[in-house]
């Protein structure tokens, strides 16, 4: 099969694909990057309640420039709105939601995901001077389900981010349930990654060729 036969999803395409799988009624936290844009693809009439670490429950669509409220930002400190039925809580209560198992889903970006569900998303080396942990470790272990959104391969060398084992420092061990990439949707199972969906035109073999970890047909 020729690589030209398929077109990888762009970042918004990954977000759109994730949005398809979120049912009404879920409480969901979206990490920074691709995940943040997932909410744009969930129609308002499908009531999904988005949570931000800084104490916002029920994030609405981004405001028009003229309607920006400097007191109201999301976890990426971008201006947001609150939808009807939302609520504000303080930081410890907000993380009680995340850490206490009350989020049906968290979607995080990552550098790498391993076939045992390990996730690495905060540093490229343990000695990295700049440590961007944020709330990822709390969300990764606390949410009922953790999905990851990321490109399947690194930009430069094309290395697989879907790995037998993570090479970067871990965010948490054994927590990822599913990965959405620009090429496929992979479930983490006791027997490793199972391919649940692929983009049109991509074959299993071509996907495997781009993937460090062994894949199973879903």
């Amino acid at each position: 099969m020729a690589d030209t036969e398929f077109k990888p999803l762009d970042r918004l395409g990954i977000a759109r694909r994730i949005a398809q799988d979120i049912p009404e009624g879920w409480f969901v936290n979206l990490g920074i990057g691709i995940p943040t844009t997932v909410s744009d693809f969930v129609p308002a009439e499908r009531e999904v309640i988005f949570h931000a670490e800084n104490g916002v429950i029920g994030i609405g669509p981004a405001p028009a420039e003229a309607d920006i409220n400097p007191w109201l930002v999301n976890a990426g400190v971008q201006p947001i709105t609150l939808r009807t039925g939302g609520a504000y809580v303080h930081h410890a209560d907000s993380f009680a939601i995340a850490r206490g198992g009350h989020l049906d889903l968290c979607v995080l970006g990552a550098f790498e995901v391993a076939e045992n569900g390990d996730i690495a998303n905060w540093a490229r080396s343990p000695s990295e001077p700049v440590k961007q942990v944020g709330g990822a470790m709390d969300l990764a272990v606390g949410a009922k389900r953790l999905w990851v959104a990321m490109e399947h391969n690194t930009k430069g060398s094309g290395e697989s981010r879907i790995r037998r084992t993570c090479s970067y420092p871990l965010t948490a061990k054994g927590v990822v349930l599913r990965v959405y990439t620009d090429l496929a949707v992979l479930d983490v199972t006791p027997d490793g990654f199972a391919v649940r969906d692929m983009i049109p035109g991509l074959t299993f073999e071509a996907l495997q060729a781009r993937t460090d970890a062994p894949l199973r047909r879903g």
Partner: protein
Amino acid sequence: MIDKFVPNIQEAMAGIQDGATILLAGFKAGTPERLVKGLIEQGARNLTLVCNAGGGDDGPIAELLATEHVAKIVCSFVRPASVAARLYAQGKLELEIVPQGTLAERIRAAGAGVRGFYTPTAADTVLADGRETRVIDGKLCLLEYPIHGDVALIDAWQADRWGNLTHRESARNFNPIMAMAAKLAIVQTNHVVNLGDIPPEHVHTAGVFVQRVLHVPL
């Protein structure tokens, strides 16, 4: 559309299993009395009841205990003149006494994902006999574990269809933290309000912690 309202007490109480741990909110005020009656009617047996106090000679807790569907009670005190004290004396009720602040903190810990904590409360009393203690900063502390509920019975003044709640005056007490700490939080509310009628900065218990709401008018 998310709608957590249930039409009647039977649906409110449906599925409570024998052996369940029931968190019952209230400090006289804020006790969900209709739900307690509903629990008696529902008939689950061998329950563990977690509440502030063991009740008196009448009232909702006494009624519930008198049915002998409760095997164990976890609370901060038991009055000498009470159904609980008599059942305990007869060997028909197991009793775990927990200092009231530790009780509240253990319940909150369950809701917040805290797996254990150290407190000086009761560390140098007989309640610590045979239990794990350690000295932290020169202070003897007792290791306490979270109290998770299978079910929480919750009282509210107002509720909307997402399960956002307000509680009146001191009727708040254990209601917000018990809702957090249970898999299934069942609410009786005096008033039903539209989504958005509770201002987002004035929500006392966020809908993320609530599964079912029954309207019980005053």
